[in-house]
């Protein structure tokens, strides 16, 4: 089982005719994702990859194909608008890959999402994958294996490390969700943990975090009260200097808050097994599952 995406997902790709959109749409299709439509304003009427119809608007794509999820590859200046367009068209799951969206745009987009049914994942994220069923994003599909560990992470390649370790040790994944590296996003650690907690197909959860914000601490508080399934975690950035943005817009220790040490302490207090280094992520999960 899984959360949010499975073999029934019908995927739209916004920005499908751009270089990144086209490449990754093809990769997702090769993985087995059911890509049913593309949107690039002004390119409606074209066919992508011999079989995917391209539309000018998300509304039209929705009406004509029944797409229920979207993967956004629109460049940063237009990405928040693309998110709002998808929500307005009634798309239930919006996965925004784009990095570099101005924070104020995301602040406003969250306001625009308030009364819509859409769940937003990202922006600045690698996407979401239910191994063997549906891949929405840029992650390498082959490292994943169907199973029962739920993975939630802010990072891209660090997540692939974790998944690689889990798969190598025989621990498949129910769903892997990359929530992204931006300070304001659609789905936080606590949201993903809650969904994994309620998913009968997920038996254990691994949480990968980093400096900045309070997402991991909020998840820890939730875990303490509500989660009986085994949880392991790794937090990156113990050596990051304060006040510097470490690659991700949201990875910054500000005014003494958002440190790796603080997050680790909160998670440990909630009974989460902590991997001391990224080399031990699968070990920590296995340890906790015993």
């Amino acid at each position, binding site marked *: 089982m899984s959360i949010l995406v499975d073999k029934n997902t019908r995927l739209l790709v916004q920005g499908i005719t751009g270089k990144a959109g086209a490449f990754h749409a093809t*990769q997702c299709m090769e993985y087995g994702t059911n890509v049913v439509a593309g949107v690039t304003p002004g390119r409606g009427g074209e066919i992508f990859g011999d079989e995917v119809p391209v539309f000018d608007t998300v509304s039209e794509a929705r009406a004509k194909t029944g797409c229920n999820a979207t993967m956004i590859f629109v460049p*940063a*200046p237009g990405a928040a608008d693309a998110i709002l367009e998808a929500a307005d068209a009634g798309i239930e799951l919006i996965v925004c890959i784009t990095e*570099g*969206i*101005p*924070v*104020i*745009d995301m*602040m*406003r987009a*969250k*306001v625009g999402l308030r009364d819509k049914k859409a769940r937003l994942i990202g922006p600045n994220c690698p996407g979401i994958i239910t191994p063997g069923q549906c891949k929405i994003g*840029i*992650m*390498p599909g*082959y*490292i994943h294996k169907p199973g029962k560990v739920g993975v939630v*992470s*802010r*990072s*891209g*390649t*660090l*997540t*692939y*490390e974790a998944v*690689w370790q889990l798969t190598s040790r025989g621990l498949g994944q129910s769903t892997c969700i990359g929530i992204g*590296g931006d*300070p*304001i996003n659609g789905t936080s650690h606590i949201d993903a943990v809650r969904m994994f907690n309620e998913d009968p197909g997920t038996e254990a959860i691994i949480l*990968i975090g*980093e*400096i*900045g*914000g*309070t997402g991991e601490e909020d998840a820890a508080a939730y875990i303490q009260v509500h989660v009986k399934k085994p949880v392991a975690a*790794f937090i*990156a*950035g*113990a*050596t*990051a*200097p304060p006040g*510097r*943005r*470490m*690659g*991700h*817009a*949201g*990875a910054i220790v500000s*005014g003494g808050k958002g440190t*790796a040490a603080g997050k680790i302490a909160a998670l440990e207090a909630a009974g989460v097994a902590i991997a*001391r*280094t*990224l*080399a*031990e992520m699968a070990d920590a999960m296995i340890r906790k599952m015993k």
Partner: protein
Amino acid sequence: MNIHEYQAKELMQKFGVATPPGAVAGTPEEAEAVARSLQASDLVIKAQIHAGGRGKGTFKNGFKGGVKLVKTPGEIRDLAAKMLGQTLVTAQTGEAGKLVGKVMIAVAKDPVRELYFAIVLDREAQAPVIIASTKGGMNIEDVAHETPELILRMKIDPALGLQPYEARKLADYLGLKGVFFKPACAIFQALYNLFIATDCSLVEINPLVTTAQNEVLALDAKFNFDDNALYRHPDILAYRDITEEDPREVEASRFGLNYIGLDGNIACLVNGAGLAMSTMDIIQYAGGKPANFLDVGGGATEQQVTEAFKILVSDGNVKAILVNIFGGIMKCDTIAQGIINAVKAVSLPVPLVVRLEGTNVAAGRKLLQESNLPIIAADDLLDAARKVVAAVKK
């Protein structure tokens, strides 16, 4: 991105934020001309650097104080001559200090009350938050620590913006009544407009002052801008002062590399920010000291890898390099070839440990082995970290 005080003043003037008249100068003559144009009997001259603590700082030429109050344009000229082209060391610059390229001359104002006013994009609130306190002119973090009850935090709805009644509430909280009431509301509104219009992440006015002439003024201003939004503010981007930034970081950004210099001796090169942070962490865990954060991005082209190596070896402190790449869409053999070519191009002076994982990893490792270059291969990350720490000790 940060800007200089004189640039902040220009921005505030543009948005109608009340601030003492003043302007920038790059020579003693210009400084005197600015001083004359102000036609005031009390003037202040301030060295322009991206750091605080200027008043108590010392120049390397022995001259003390980067902020001076004087009465005449002639004195302004003399002081400008002592500051311009000199290096100012303050508590915030570190021992190296910062070179003063410009000075700002302004009308000196005698504050009656000193207050604190800031607007920050708060990620928890997911909205702009106004922070106000009657305790201006001091370190707000000390105030937050000692007397948190003297700080007001007001969340502003991003859809509505700062409403006039909210500005009135703030004025009331800060005790800005009577003749100060209207100018206070005006300055809060103007600052909020500036904040939104320029995609700020932080606007800090410390102190916000009242004067005997019944003014409410921003006496000092610190702005920080959202790097993601600079593409739509070419005028703000034009304020960028590259001389205030680490030259290695500037060089790295030219090639789409994300580099942050630290003070250790083990350099690292990684694809992905989370993986790069974790790599720095595991170096420390294994007993070493990371020299930098370097994210070559998800793509990691051969050119980027080469430029990254050049930047790493240009740091004299670096005694060993650890490369950690997880090839997803990028293939490990492509990365390996890039590393080999880069090593040849820069003729590597220090030990190199490479750990590859992911797509085509076997082919990648084989390429490294057969290259006959002195590259130390490692299979897992802890092994790699231990090897690079050991390589430094040799």
